[in-house]
């Protein structure tokens, strides 16, 4: 009589082990995927999302992580997040201090590129965007508050960020580092605000129209001209202070151009997108 060694498994035992191992693998893989919830539920990352982004949880659900918005952005403001964002891996965001959204595409190209409606298609103009709201955080350092001017490059010669200067080239944004300033009183945040620039352009156009200098007049669409101002320098107790107004859409240009380190103005994406325009439609 040969005695079976103790560790030899019967086919039935082998099948059973394989089954249990497979259950463990299934639970393991699902568990690892669910770990992605941790950074999201724990609010570890607060990102400025591209124009038209839905409320954060809906945005993460609707985004198919393809990066088409990244590809169409003329200033390459949009970046995709890494695994550290958990469920947000591959989801687009903007770091405005490095490169803000300056609306130099005019037509909200990222919104048009989005295949799933994570960037909602119902908006057409910069003034309808609701990415966040600018907040002044460091006013004591603000050059304007201290009555100082600004001369030179806003962010130094090595800064890679781009901005469109319509007076230089209407169609191609140039490097901030290629555009020196010489200002009596620093008003870069107001001067470069895309909403403020757009309001000024509309006003100039209106003036031309009234004085009869233009024959052909294009019909303006609603919100083509921003209905509200976004930022102004206001005299508060004798100091010119940047004040954020209702028209701010959170594009982040003021944060990018602010020459002070760290920036006097930063984008806050949390409170404004809570009533994101997108969510009102859905």
């Amino acid at each position: 009589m040969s005695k079976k060694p103790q560790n030899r498994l019967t086919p039935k035992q082998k099948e059973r082990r394989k089954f249990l191992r497979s259950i463990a693998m299934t639970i393991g893989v699902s568990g690892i995927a669910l770990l992605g919830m941790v950074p999201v539920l724990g609010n570890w990352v607060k990102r400025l999302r591209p124009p038209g982004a839905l409320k954060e949880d809906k945005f993460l659900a609707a985004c198919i992580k393809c990066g088409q918005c990244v590809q169409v952005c003329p200033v390459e403001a949009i970046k995709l997040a890494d695994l550290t964002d958990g469920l947000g891996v591959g989801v687009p965001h903007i770091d405005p201090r490095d490169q803000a959204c300056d609306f130099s595409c005019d037509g909200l190209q990222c919104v048009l590129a989005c295949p799933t409606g994570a960037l909602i298609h119902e908006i057409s103009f910069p003034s309808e965007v609701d990415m966040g709201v600018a907040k002044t955080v460091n006013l004591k350092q603000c050059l304007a508050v201290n009555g100082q001017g600004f001369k030179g490059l806003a962010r130094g010669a090595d800064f890679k960020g781009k901005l469109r200067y319509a007076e230089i080239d209407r169609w191609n944004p140039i490097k901030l580092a290629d555009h020196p300033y010489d200002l009596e009183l620093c008003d870069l945040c107001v001067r470069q605000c895309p909403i403020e620039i757009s309001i000024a352009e509309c006003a100039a156009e209106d003036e031309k129209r009234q004085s009869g200098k233009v024959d052909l007049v294009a019909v303006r669409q609603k919100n083509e001209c921003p209905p509200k101002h976004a930022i102004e320098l206001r005299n508060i107790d004798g100091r010119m202070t940047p004040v954020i107004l209702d028209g701010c859409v959170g594009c982040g240009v003021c944060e990018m151009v602010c020459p002070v380190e760290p920036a006097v103005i930063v984008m806050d994406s949390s409170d404004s997108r809570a009533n994101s325009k997108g969510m009102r439609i859905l």
Partner: protein
Amino acid sequence: MSNVIESIRVLLGGTPKRVAKKDMPEEVRELHAHKFADKERIEKIRIELAEKHANPPLEKLRLKRWAVLIAVNLLFVVSYHLDIQLLEGALTASRFAGFHMADLNSALQVMLAFKHVVINLVIGTTTVFILWWLLGGRTFCSWVCPYHLVAEWAEMLHLKLVDKGWAKDIQFDRRSRAWLWLVFVILAVVTGYTVYETISPTGILSRALIYGPGVALIWVALLLLFEIFFSRRAWCRYACPIGLTYGIVGATSPFTVRYQLPNCFHEGECRKVCLVPHVLDTVLKGKAKAMEVDIGADCTRCLRCVDACPTGALTIKYKGLTS
């Protein structure tokens, strides 16, 4: 129809059903019984195979497939970096010459999590559905998926290590892929997030190629290490829900690999190279239930078996085009 149902059952992890001898057509039974009479021919094949094993020839179809896979992925990269807007986006969703395409599994996750479908996504999903139905379903895996390619390279290493006894092939229940598919569908609906996309090596690799590498590649590396040392092609075989989604699409596809019983002498070369050997159950001695059998839905149409078969028993078929 019963073939399609059986093919989907095997795709979901079922063991291939075998037909009893008495239920086989007369000619098939005859062939099974008398096939090995031609001793001379079998000896010739044996010698030919020994030679082939001593000097492995180039797998031409495999190299062509790799070229296609690399070309498709490179088209995404080149299109972005040269800004030629030919194929924009990543494998999860893209636009080919402006026309929407959406990966079926990613689109499914988004639809279930978001619970709202925009028309662009419908267009993209339908286009891709038709495309991969025409092309064979899991053809996506072996001809396009970048993870498939790196997993193939890892597999080559794995097989060498197994020979030396430094690695082993732990097998899992193939049903685990269907469970995972279901788990991720339920998670998308319940949590409202596209949970699977977080760990999808296909998406991670595609984005890394186009937009630059990131920490997420560590997950892909871990998967590959697991496959190299512990389990051959584990992700593609036992886990990937994308493979299952495309498998279902391909269940009725006109593009298949066809098995011809009269040409087969059961050396088993095809099963050795196959990612999903259960689809080749029919090539085992005495198992084929007809003179010609189309290989099932789980087949990725990688065509390695076509290259491997010494007697031309496995051929590429496009129903309606080739008879």
